């Protein structure tokens, strides 16, 4: 079972990707989406998710706003900004480059 360590360096990418497909998710929603989409393999832990969300918000990639849920409670939902979209593209290509490089190493070594 991969631990969150496996997510090192890719948490940003995952969050950005999830939010680009399904905007307006709150923190729990993002966590659940990552788990679901990865077939229960990848799991973002709360302890690292929220600092990451706040960091990306301060960096201007995400925009957050409060909504009132049906239960009457407030929730903080996130969506991508234009800068976030640009960042996602950059992260994706970087990720692909890394994967390709790792694959090359596995093949030739």
């Amino acid at each position, binding site marked *: 079972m991969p631990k969150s360590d496996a997510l090192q360096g890719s948490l940003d990418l995952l969050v950005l990707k999830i939010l680009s497909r399904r905007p307006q998710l*709150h*923190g*729990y*929603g993002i966590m*659940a989406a990552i788990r679901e989409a990865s077939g229960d393999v990848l799991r973002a*832990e*709360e*302890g690292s998710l*929220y*600092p990451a969300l*706040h*960091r990306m*918000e*301060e*960096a*201007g990639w995400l925009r957050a706003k409060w909504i009132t849920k049906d*239960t009457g*409670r*407030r*929730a*903080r939902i996130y969506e991508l900004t234009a800068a976030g979209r640009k960042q996602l593209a950059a992260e994706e290509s970087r990720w692909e480059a890394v994967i390709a490089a790792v694959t090359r190493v596995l093949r030739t070594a």
Partner: protein
Amino acid sequence: MSLWSRLANVFRSDGLRREIDEELASHIEEAVGQGRDPVEVRRAFGSPLRLREASMDIRHFGWLDSLRADAVFGWRQIRKTKVMSATAILSLALALGACTAAFRLIDGLFLRPLPVAHPEQLYALSREGYIQDGKPSVSEWWGNADFRRMRAAVKGTAELIGISGAERMDLTYRSDREMERAELQYVSGWMFQSFALRPALGRLLTEDDDLKPLAHPYVVLSYEYWTRRFGRDPKVIGRTLTIGRKYGIGSDLFQIIGVVADGFTGTEPGKTPDMFIPTMMSALLTRPEAGWLRTFVRMEPGVAQEPVRDRMTAVFRASKEGVIDTNDRLRQTLLMASAAAGVSGMQKDFGLPLTALGLLVTLVLLVACANVANLMLAQAAARAREMALRVSIGAGRGRLVQLVLVESAMLALLAAAGAALFAGWAAPFVVGRIHPADNPARLPLPGDWRVFGFGLALTLGVTVLFGLAPALRASAVRPSSALKGGDDPQSRHRLMHLLIAVQAAFCFVALFGAGLFVTTFDRLSHRSTGFSSERLVHLDALAEHAEPEAFWDRVTARLRRVPGVEAAALADWPLLGGGWGYHNISVNGSHPTDEQIAWFLNVSPGWVDTMNIPLLDGRDFRAKDISPVAGVGTGAAIVNIAFARKYLSGANPIGRWFEARSTGYWPDMRFQVVGLVRDATYRFLREPVLPVVYIPFHRTNDDGTLQARVEGTFVVRTTDPDPLALAPILSQEITRVLPGSRIRGIRTQNEIIESQTVRERLLAMLALFFAVVVLALAGIGLYGVLDYSVFQRQREIGIRMALGAQAGDLVRRVTQDVFSMVLLGATAGVGFSMASVRYIETLLYGVKPADAAVLGLPLIAIPVAAVIAALPALTRAVRTDPIHVLRAE
């Protein structure tokens, strides 16, 4: 964007914290709602506090937030201890303000570069070994002939610029006939170009405007004068004016050709010339022996100084024009000193006083710092438990230092605001008192980045100075012992006691200095002048044309008949009034040396009597006594005792003869002594009595006829105690007899004497003020320390009282250490004062450092202040109720 939002978040951190908490709470709720086990969810989360702080750190600046929290806390502390904070802020504000004001003065006079192109290339040329008043000295004044020759000699390697001293002159604008005064300066025509100055209006002088004597009657106005006198009227160009008839300038009709751009206030700090005139228009051109131009040397870049100076020296020594004694020139050496900040007489007169003042205000600042440090140390000790608590819940040492330093910085900043106000008022206040009211010093004191930077640096320095010790002390707290109820209270007092000793030492120095200056002023203003200055008024009259002596005598006679006039006479100028003249004296045909000089004054019959100078032997002048012109005839003279003693061996001077000559240029004038009078002060109040010769007011021409005079000063002694009350009538009488005459100035003799003590009065006033401030501050500091120490030792005192200690014993125990520190400090102060007094010796008059009056002031004031400061704390100690104190434990 991120920077801004993080910055903004600092100031809404409480809201931010709540927001994060709510978001995390909503997450848990969501998870539980999805059917997860609440305990498991919480465990997965870890410590919510850590998570929140991690997010907080991301979303704003942690250090800034802690700074903000400290500032809020510090403000609360400041408000909690209102009296202490107010004392600290006020004393710091006063001290910082005084220092900033002193800096503004020193900067304005000595440091600020002239507002011209490349001021660093400017040097002032002076000569050493020049004989003045019979003594070798340094002169910065040059004759036009020497100036022009030296300029030609160094052409290509350096440019010479001649600038006369700024002087107030009478002038009249042609359109409105009213006489007024303005400060005027003769300058080389090429000065403006060399300084790269631009006109605000019209054109500036050029080299072509300074070629032929009396051929260029042009005037350039200063921007400030243009604004003040003409309200920036552009039609001022082409207006004509008459200037300085006093010197009989050939062409006295001048034309305004331009206004120099704003910012140029001349090259003579302390004076701001109103108008600039070509040197070729000066009446002094006809007197080759006269030195009247300051010579500025602008070195071309990359040229060495030595060869340039050598070439000028060679030209100067070889010059023959207007020079009788060439040996005199061989004795002189040329000096070049940087003139980047300009050159002025005020720099010479006020260099030492301003330095003394600067040191004094530094003492004030240090005492204030020690004071605040002491108050804060006391507070830090009182807050030991709070600090201990902070340490035990995990505050780092740096964090505590920051906490206390932030509080110090807030005190300092509040003080700096007050200081800015104080300095803004104090610097012009002092400048306004540097000269007598009729001839004010004008020193531009812009409050620009230089002043601001100095103030800021000073404030920060001061914060560290008084804040660091309490901050380190607070951070060094050992929680285990502090929370237990305090460790040995004595151990924390050492630094406070040391500061008390330092304060006492500074206190002594300040009071001692104040004593010196006050005594100097007192001795000087009560110096015997040798004449009576009561009810004496001088009227400086200027006739339209030179008038024959009969007119002048008739005025004197008319004045004597005015009701309320006790006596009236006529002289060239009033004693001590700023005028002087001297000749070399030869008795029995001996060749006079440089030191054999006597000072002269032309006076009318009755002048000696009017001035109340006792006639000891012989007679007063008569109407037919006249002053001879050089080489023609003989004249009568009244001499003072100092003269008789120096030149006539003291005995029986009446009937003796002597010759006078003007530093070797002209043939001798022969005089016979007809009267002997008591010594009177002649030129400066500070000077020892000079050998003085009074000679008749009327002078002959070369052909033996009487010279017509254009000006003279009437002196009148009234019967009314206020001589100025009669002045309008007297002026009227004078102008009625002398055709077209004007009264240029009316001054009482007392005013004249007071104007000679302006500097001493200013110094005495400021020194006394600051000494009192230092004493008060030190007293407050002492009070604070004692009060705190009594508070700290409450338990000890209570126990002692319970065991039967007497009040006297308690008082001794509480004050012993502190008072011995005061004594120690004062002793150190005595030593320091005695060692440093010789540096200000030239500022003193008639006072010795060992004078009882000077030493007595601090020796009495410091113990008295110490006792007064100690009283409240001692009263509290003696009144301690042992039962109450011990029960409180």
